């Protein structure tokens, strides 16, 4: 599995110094791959950390500056939205737990740097969902842009309610009660996740998952999501989260033990495998050894390598080979397979393939 890790963007993320030797044609490809992967702003940040900003040729510089402008604005906006959410959900007898990107911003983690957002994800106990939904509606968020089929699908089978969009600010909130659908193969216990959530120092009343749980959630998301337009970006999130958390001496054993406890060992195994492959993340061999029992058999693993080395690469023509389209389809089917049993999956895919395209559905589930 070596050819595909060779794309310019991963190589640059692994060792930023190589850009000092880039020809202008390589900058052209780098900017395009980074834009497709949603990583322009993160790359700008990486260059500035490594004192390489001056190495960016004049013609290419605005692409990084513009992305950085957008990312900084989004960070400010996310902090503001979190305060609005906290106020909207103040009466809820349950802590407001923020997930993924918004959590990295709330907790000021290195993984916030250059991160772009589509929505804010929060986690609440299932029995609080109804109340939370009404409170959010009173504060201006409402379910929008989904077909009746998609709404029913969310409410009946998913681990979240239909996304809610704010009437004025157009921000989107995803309210989850679990990190995987009820119908999924694995059932990480949400109560266990919530019990270890930590309050954010400068945003009292806002909580984030514990370090290991954040990582496990990100890994699970990556290997259960059908469409991965930003797979590499999510890998870089994980890379930054791991490097930050691994400062603690007992971190790795704690992480693998927690993965077992939450039934997420397989997802963590894959995440670490492809992190090493794409980003040279320093994962100790001991961690891989203790996860070996969670690995799939050799034939499956060989197949998964073929799939994930393609779908986690930037979604750009320069990173694709003749198997990329098939690999993306395979990842899509696999993710749905893990999320739903066959008697639900087959009618669902049928609806998505033959009915949804002919309805007005701005944002499919």
């Amino acid at each position: 599995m070596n050819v595909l890790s060779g794309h310019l963007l991963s190589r640059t993320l692994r060792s930023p110094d190589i850009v000092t030797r880039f020809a202008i044609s390589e900058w052209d490809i780098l900017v395009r791959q980074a834009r497709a992967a949603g990583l322009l702003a993160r790359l700008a940040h990486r260059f500035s950390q490594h004192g390489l900003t001056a190495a960016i040729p004049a013609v290419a510089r605005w692409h990084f500056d513009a992305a950085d402008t957008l990312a900084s604005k989004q960070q400010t906006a996310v902090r503001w939205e979190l305060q609005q959410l906290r106020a909207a959900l103040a009466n809820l007898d349950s802590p407001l737990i923020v997930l993924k990107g918004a959590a990295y911003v709330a907790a000021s983690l290195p993984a916030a740097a250059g991160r772009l957002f589509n929505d804010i994800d929060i986690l609440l106990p299932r029995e609080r969902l109804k109340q939370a939904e009404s409170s959010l509606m009173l504060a201006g968020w409402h379910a929008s842009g989904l077909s009746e089929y998609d709404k029913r699908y969310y409410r009946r089978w998913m681990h979240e309610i239909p996304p809610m969009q704010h009437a004025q600010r157009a921000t989107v909130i995803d309210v989850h009660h679990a990190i995987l659908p009820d119908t999924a193969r694995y059932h990480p216990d949400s109560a266990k996740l919530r019990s270890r959530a930590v309050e954010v120092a400068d945003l009292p009343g806002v909580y984030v998952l514990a370090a290991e749980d954040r990582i496990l959630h990100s890994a699970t998301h990556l290997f259960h999501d059908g469409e991965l337009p930003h797979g590499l970006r999510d890998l870089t999130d994980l890379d930054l989260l791991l490097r930050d958390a691994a400062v603690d001496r007992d971190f790795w054993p704690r992480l693998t033990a927690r993965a077992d406890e939450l039934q997420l060992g397989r997802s963590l195994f894959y995440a670490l495998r492809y992190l090493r492959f794409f980003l040279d993340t320093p994962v100790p061999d001991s961690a891989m050894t203790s996860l070996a029992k969670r690995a799939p058999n050799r034939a499956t693993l060989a197949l998964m390598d073929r799939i994930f080395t393609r779908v986690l690469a930037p979604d750009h023509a320069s990173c694709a080979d003749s198997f990329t389209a098939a690999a993306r389809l395979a990842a899509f089917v696999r993710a749905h397979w893990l999320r739903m049993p066959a008697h639900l999956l087959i009618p669902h895919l049928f609806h998505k393939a033959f009915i949804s395209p002919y309805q007005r559905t701005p944002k499919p589930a």
Partner: protein
Amino acid sequence: MKLLQLPPAELRRQLAGAGIWMRTGPFSLKVQSRIPSVVTGLTELYGQFEVRSMKESFADFHVSVNPPANLRRWLRPQATFSFDGLQPFKPLPLDQAFPILEWGLNWCVSTQAHQYLIIHAAVVEKNGLAAILPAPPGSGKSTLAAGLVLSGWRLLSDELTLIDRKTGLIHPLPRPVSLKNRSIDVIRQFAPDVYINPASHDTIKGTVAHMRPPRDSVRRQHETARPGWVIFPKWEAGAPATLTPRSQAQTFMFLAQNAFNYSHLGADGFRVGTALIDQTDCYDFRYSALDEAVATFDRLAERRTS
């Protein structure tokens, strides 16, 4: 070399193959298309623009307009715009292929180029000062801008006012001027010699055609201009050309709401916007006859320079 210096067969071959490298204002493009009306449109409207061989290796926007790969091409031929593999719009009838390229390029600039505050407005220049013409569609902003640039004003842009966030100066992007519905005939009558390409009918904006940008505006496409006026035009049947001063604060609010990326720039958007308003005179402008409108603008320009 200029695009018109490329032999037509060679241009067609390059466009259908790897594409051509082209410069418009501060942006470099790689454009690729197999559609004949796109090749013709580029030949007729972009003749004065600089092109280079495809060996030129960096481009800001890699774009293409081609028939989508689906079965409909056999029933009702369509064209789709692609920004480096991303298709931001649904395919449209093939007849609209050239306008799709223009709209697609506007989309690229307005969603990416956050080194500028980008206002949805036409902008023209005389004696180093720019007149920004923001207005809702249908108010006659493109018609007025076309009339002005055919009467000695320089075209900076008919759609996107690019304000440099560092210097506050306006960067030209003098691409073809989009004319809609009745204004196509108005401009044909106003300047019978000007080249306007064959119209595309039944687009979301009605009938659309594009006017070739004046040669001098293209030649000076790297020359920035200082903001001088913000003028809201409104065409009204029979109205005499009248300028009415308007509040700077209200004008600022309108510009902020009609900028493509004001909210993306955060506090810097406010700083750039207020600095712009501080150095401009703001007016509402009603007119019916284009030559009268041009005379009014000429008097404004003389007053500021004398």
